[in-house]
């Protein structure tokens, strides 16, 4: 048998080291575990400070003994490589494991063991744990705000439809792949707007379906005789012209009545709220702030003084004021500058305000990417005869935007987490609803549950976005 050198474990007495080490580590974890879950201190016979540090010391020695390079055991190698590379890391790893074990019981008891979810009044919540009954009862409000219960299917339907339309990219065949960007940038937001305007809001329907159908049928029939070269232009121009002609020249009351669709019951935006409002506000702000930010960042580097100083002014102004004042001004000051009879919905104003605010940040992030590109890229593009727009769209922006995906994701996450601030204009998304609910005299004292609930939801949303941005980054990664 080889000599044992406990200061320098090696492969010679592999098993001895391994068993001693594992036993020591297991023992240390066991002590902490008993202490934390069963409140038993089996080493209390030792003097105070030693009994306090003993698990750490035991575990530390144990980890030292099992730190054997290339042991051949996959699991052991993985541990050594990841959490046990040297004494300092071993110490930190132990500390983290102990803290987790220590904090598990109180967390478990609050979240699950002592929590209540049954019943439908606060009386059932007698335990020391969380009162999930509160969330259950208010769930509907947290999701939909003050949106009338009977109409909530409209929100569900819209969101399901939009979610489905949003995933279309995964199913697109090769032939349609090249139109996907166009779809997501131009078509999808418009569809989303229509859903929200007609379904969720119940906006008036301007379209006369009877004329629409007639125009469509006529243009399809004539369409058969149009050479395929012009078909695209034909189908863009003719149906719309026909429809307008029918509507304003050939006016026939009964035909209109025949095809009339009743619009849904109007639900004013003040009643919207909860998580669905978080989604709506975030979605539109994300969609608007990106192109605005893009143009501002290009404008800031422009050679034309007017464009340049306008962009700098915009960026510095919006970056310089707190969002909460921007929102406040959008609802209080902005209407004063509008003509008397003009009215812009509160929600629309809020979306514009947040979009402009975040656009300033997006602009600076993108500018960082533009500046990171070597001048040679501009030279090469110019020398091939590309003008400003071709150069930017084909060469500069694809590279710059790829570089700034993490920065943009950062800004977007901040945007989503900024949405609760719209409470200052009286719009209550999920956090706003929580604040409302916690002041309800029937349900005083459950703020904690509410905030935990909202945190979990926000975390899920933000984590998903973050993951998605990481995927994008990987997808567009090319060697430089």
């Amino acid at each position, binding site marked *: 048998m080889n000599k044992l050198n406990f200061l320098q474990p090696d492969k010679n007495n592999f098993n001895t080291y391994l068993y001693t080490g594992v036993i020591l580590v297991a023992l240390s974890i066991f002590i902490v575990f008993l202490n934390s879950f069963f409140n038993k201190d089996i080493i209390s016979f030792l003097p105070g400070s030693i009994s306090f540090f003993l698990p750490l010391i035991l575990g530390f020695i144990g980890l030292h003994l099992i730190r054997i390079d290339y042991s051949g055991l996959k699991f052991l190698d993985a541990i050594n490589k990841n959490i046990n590379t040297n004494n300092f890391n071993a110490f930190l790893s132990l500390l983290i494991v102990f803290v987790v074990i220590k904090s598990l019981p109180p967390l478990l008891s609050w979240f699950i063991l002592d929590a209540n979810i049954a019943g439908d009044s606060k009386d059932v919540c007698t335990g020391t744990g969380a009162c999930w009954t509160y969330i259950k009862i208010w769930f509907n409000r947290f999701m939909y705000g003050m949106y009338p219960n009977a109409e909530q299917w409209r929100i569900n339907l819209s969101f399901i439809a939009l979610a489905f339309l949003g995933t279309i990219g995964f199913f697109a065949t090769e032939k349609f792949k090249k139109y996907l960007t166009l779809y997501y940038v131009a078509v999808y937001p418009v569809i989303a707007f229509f859903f929200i305007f007609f379904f969720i809001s119940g906006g008036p329907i301007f379209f006369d379906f009877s004329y629409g159908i007639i125009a469509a049928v006529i243009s399809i029939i004539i369409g058969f005789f149009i050479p395929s070269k012009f078909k695209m232009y034909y189908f863009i121009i003719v149906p719309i012209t026909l429809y307008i002609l029918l509507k304003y020249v050939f006016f026939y009351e009964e035909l209109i009545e025949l095809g009339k669709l009743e619009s849904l019951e109007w639900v004013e935006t003040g009643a919207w709220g909860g998580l669905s409002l978080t989604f709506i506000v975030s979605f539109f702000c994300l969609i608007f702030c990106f192109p605005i930010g893009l143009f501002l960042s290009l404008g800031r580097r422009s050679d034309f003084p007017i464009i340049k100083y306008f962009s700098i002014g915009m960026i510095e102004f919006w970056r310089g004021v707190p969002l909460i004042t921007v929102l406040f001004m959008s609802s209080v000051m902005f209407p004063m500058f509008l003509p008397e009879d003009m009215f812009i919905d509160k929600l629309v104003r809020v979306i514009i305000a947040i979009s402009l605010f975040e656009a300033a940040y997006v602009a600076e992030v993108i500018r960082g990417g533009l500046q990171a590109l070597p001048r040679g890229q501009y030279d*090469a593009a110019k*020398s*091939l*005869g*590309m*003008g400003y727009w*071709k150069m930017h769209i084909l060469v500069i922006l694809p590279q710059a935007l790829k570089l700034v995906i993490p920065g943009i994701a950062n800004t977007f996450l901040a945007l989503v987490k900024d949405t609760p601030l719209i409470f200052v204009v009286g719009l209550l998304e999920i956090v706003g609803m929580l604040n409302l609910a916690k002041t309800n005299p029937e349900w005083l004292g459950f703020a904690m549950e509410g905030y935990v609930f909202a945190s979990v939801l926000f975390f899920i949303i933000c984590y998903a976005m973050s993951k998605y941005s990481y995927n994008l980054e990987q997808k567009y990664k*090319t060697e430089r």
Partner: protein
Amino acid sequence: MSDKIIQITEMNKWFGDFQVLKNINLEVEKNKKIVVCGPSGSGKSTLIRCINRLEEHQQGSIIVDGNELTEDTKDIEKIRAEVGMVFQQFNLFPHLSILDNCTLAPIWVKKMPKKNAEELALQHLEKVQIADQASKYPGQLSGGQQQRCAIARALCMEPKIMLFDEPTSALDPEMIKEVLDAMVNLAKAGMTMIVVTHEMGFAKEVADEVIFMDEGMIVERAETKEFFAHPKSDRTKLFLSQIL
């Protein structure tokens, strides 16, 4: 019609207070190959960058293929499309494959159908012998291959003039030859070329004339043989003695 495709007269250029180019007069006839040499900082790059207006000159005139380059030249892009340029640092577009690098400008600037552009690109890539790398990305190629791709990319625009700015000086010695070979072939095919380079072997082989620049001035301009056999100015002699 004169067959002078580039005509530079009395041209001066400043960077701020610093005069980089002083009283440049240069005429280049069609199909001629000119090599420009000179010490570092003498303004060689600036001179050829002025020819496709990547740099603006302040005085004098530059006429390229009958179009004068001024501040209000409307179609500077059209002129640039006729003047190909190859850079010291290759400047390929790293986000596009080699093939896409070559077809990008023909498709979007010249409005060539994609299929034709790809055929053309493959032809030119074949000429510089990297057609087999067409689907790779620039980052996956060696320096010599990248520079040959850059040459092919410029050729795909079917330019009338090719400008080279020290195309081999960022390359390892063993890759220099493959790039020079591509350039020699191009010269033999009759392209008008202005080449900034320190490769005197290349100059002797293909150049019709050699220009020596120093401190922003054209110090000497002579037929290639004459230039190397009987350099007139002392500065040229000194430079040649250092470089050969």
